[in-house]
């Protein structure tokens, strides 16, 4: 007996994931004898950089149809590019955590290995070409994240965050697995392309569509699409800010990477009401995310709801997955990773060691007391709000153009109308920083690694705003994305 399609391992495709795995193991062992958490942080950073080098090398090798395990683990452009985004987000989170963990008394050395494993899961999700690989990736990504969100031990909010995230996350996983079972039952295959091919003209589409709906709901939990978003604000508020930096970027990229691929391959073969349902979900996400964010006083919670809102914009791209939406979403995710991680990085430096004190008042007068931080924050806020010459604007234009191309003009109008709302809560931060006097002394906590992270985010956000062409061209792969077929 042989193993058809299982033994073909392209190590170029696997290299980023394997380096993450090895680094996680090394960092774990290293952490046993490390005095504080900075040693493992350095190991983790080196590992992420190594994985990044492998990913870049593969991305520019021009070998877009590379895959391992017979199309079950893909190395096409979106997979590799989103892997890079995940690695970027992880690197940012490591830099932000570097000093902050010790400052907050959370310096257990297992932090970084867990983070790397979670990133590994996200990478697997982004590369998954079949549903089983997807489930594996999802679990690898989620389990460490549950532990990380409860990282601040003996803090009720953090514990609550971990518990809530675990329970709801397990619920989401269960839905995904059940949906996978139904899809398999209807098509007899796990590989996306084969599922879609088997469903063409089949008479089991109702069963398959139910499966697709469950898969959508399961991944919707991870991506924080309304109405599956309720965990997000509580978890984001309770979990340590450094962990939220990681989660809000990496987990979102992982979930959307998987959703994009499924939306481009499997969904078109299903009954059309699923796409209608998705459109309703996206519209709901846009409205709920933006309007709830508008009502928040705490910046962390505001950013939590804003990340729900951004899930809505990415959802627009899902609907347009076969009209340039994939490249648009990949671009959007790249910028989102930078600007969101940057905003959280600033937040860690402004709030207390216990992560409390994220109220807007705390930002009053920051423009005078800490001008550098305030300027960076202003750029991130403007970019999140979609002001031109910053990456966020380019991302939004790409997403809206794809949405209109796909024929969802009214959703684009809704997206843009809610963007107006979004600009208000983002601009409010700037107004507090610059147009008000500070009421109390700001923190003098400084962290060079965090500053590096902020600088990287700043340069990236501006660069993708001023010169977006090269990255978008690289991402615009059209049919090559469907290497799953």
């Amino acid at each position: 007996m042989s193993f058809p399609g299982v033994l073909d391992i392209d190590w170029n495709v696997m290299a980023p994931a394997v380096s993450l795995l090895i680094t996680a193991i090394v960092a774990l062992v290293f952490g046993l004898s490390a005095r504080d958490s900075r040693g493992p942080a350095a190991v983790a950073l080196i590992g992420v950089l190594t994985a990044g080098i492998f990913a870049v090398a593969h991305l520019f090798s021009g070998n877009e149809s590379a895959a391992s395990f017979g199309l079950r683990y893909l190395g096409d452009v979106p997979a590799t590019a989103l892997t890079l985004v995940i690695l970027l987000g992880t690197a940012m989170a490591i830099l932000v955590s570097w000093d902050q963990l010790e400052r907050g008394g959370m310096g257990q050395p297992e932090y970084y290995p867990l983070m790397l494993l979670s990133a590994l899961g996200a990478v697997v999700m982004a590369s998954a070409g079949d549903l089983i690989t997807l489930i594996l990736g999802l679990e690898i990504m989620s389990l460490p994240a549950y532990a990380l969100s409860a990282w601040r031990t003996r803090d009720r909010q953090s514990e609550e965050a971990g518990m809530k995230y675990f329970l709801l996350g397990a619920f989401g996983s269960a839905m995904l697995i059940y949906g996978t079972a139904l899809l398999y039952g209807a098509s007899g295959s796990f590989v996306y392309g084969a599922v879609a091919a088997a469903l063409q003209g089949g008479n089991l589409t109702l069963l398959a569509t139910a499966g697709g709906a469950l898969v959508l709901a399961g991944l919707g939990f991870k991506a924080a699409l309304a109405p599956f978003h309720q965990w997000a604000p509580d978890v984001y508020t309770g979990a340590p800010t450094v962990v939220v930096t990681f989660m809000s970027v990496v987990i979102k990229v992982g979930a959307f990477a998987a959703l994009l691929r499924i939306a481009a391959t499997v969904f078109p073969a299903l009954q059309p009401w699923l796409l209608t349902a998705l459109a309703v979900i996206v519209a709901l996400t846009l409205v709920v995310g933006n309007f709830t964010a508008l009502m928040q006083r705490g910046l962390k919670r505001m950013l939590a709801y804003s990340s729900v809102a951004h899930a809505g914009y990415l959802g627009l791209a899902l609907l347009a997955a076969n009209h340039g939406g994939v490249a648009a979403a990949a671009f959007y995710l790249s910028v989102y990773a930078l600007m969101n991680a940057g905003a959280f990085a600033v937040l860690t430096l402004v709030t207390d060691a216990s992560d409390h004190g994220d109220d807007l008042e705390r930002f009053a007068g920051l423009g005078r007391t800490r001008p550098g931080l305030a300027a960076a924050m202003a750029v991130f806020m403007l970019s999140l709000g979609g002001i031109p010459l910053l990456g966020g604007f380019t991302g939004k234009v790409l997403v809206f153009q794809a949405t209109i191309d796909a024929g969802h003009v009214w959703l684009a109008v809704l997206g843009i109308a809610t963007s107006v709302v979004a600009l208000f809560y983002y601009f409010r931060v700037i107004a507090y920083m610059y147009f008000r006097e500070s009421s109390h002394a700001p923190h003098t906590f400084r962290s060079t690694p965090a500053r590096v992270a902020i600088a990287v985010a700043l340069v990236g956000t501006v660069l993708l705003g001023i010169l977006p062409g090269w990255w978008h061209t690289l991402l615009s792969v059209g049919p090559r994305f469907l290497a799953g077929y």
Partner: protein
Amino acid sequence: MYLEVLMMFLAAGLIAAAALVVGGLLGPKKPGEVKLSAYESGVPAVGSARERFPVHFYLVAMVFIIFDLETAFFYPLAVKFQAAPQFLFANAVIFVAILAVGYVYLLRKGVLNWK
């Protein structure tokens, strides 16, 4: 073609239900204090079961699960080993190596160190 499976489920359910019902109807009932009290492995229960256990038990249970899973994976591997010997051998080695790291980690953390 799955009818047999369904029939098996039904049969199993019926037998279990029958055992309970018939036993309850026909069995002699002579309750006494000793008979009604809870017991553990034949030892009379002491105190409440809602007690706090040292977390150590939990950790040891985790160690057990690690090796339990290892065994569970090795059975199918052994059965199909001839299909691709080098590949599966490499697989097994990597698998054991990762488990070994976990084991070393647990040892260093003092999981098996009872004080």
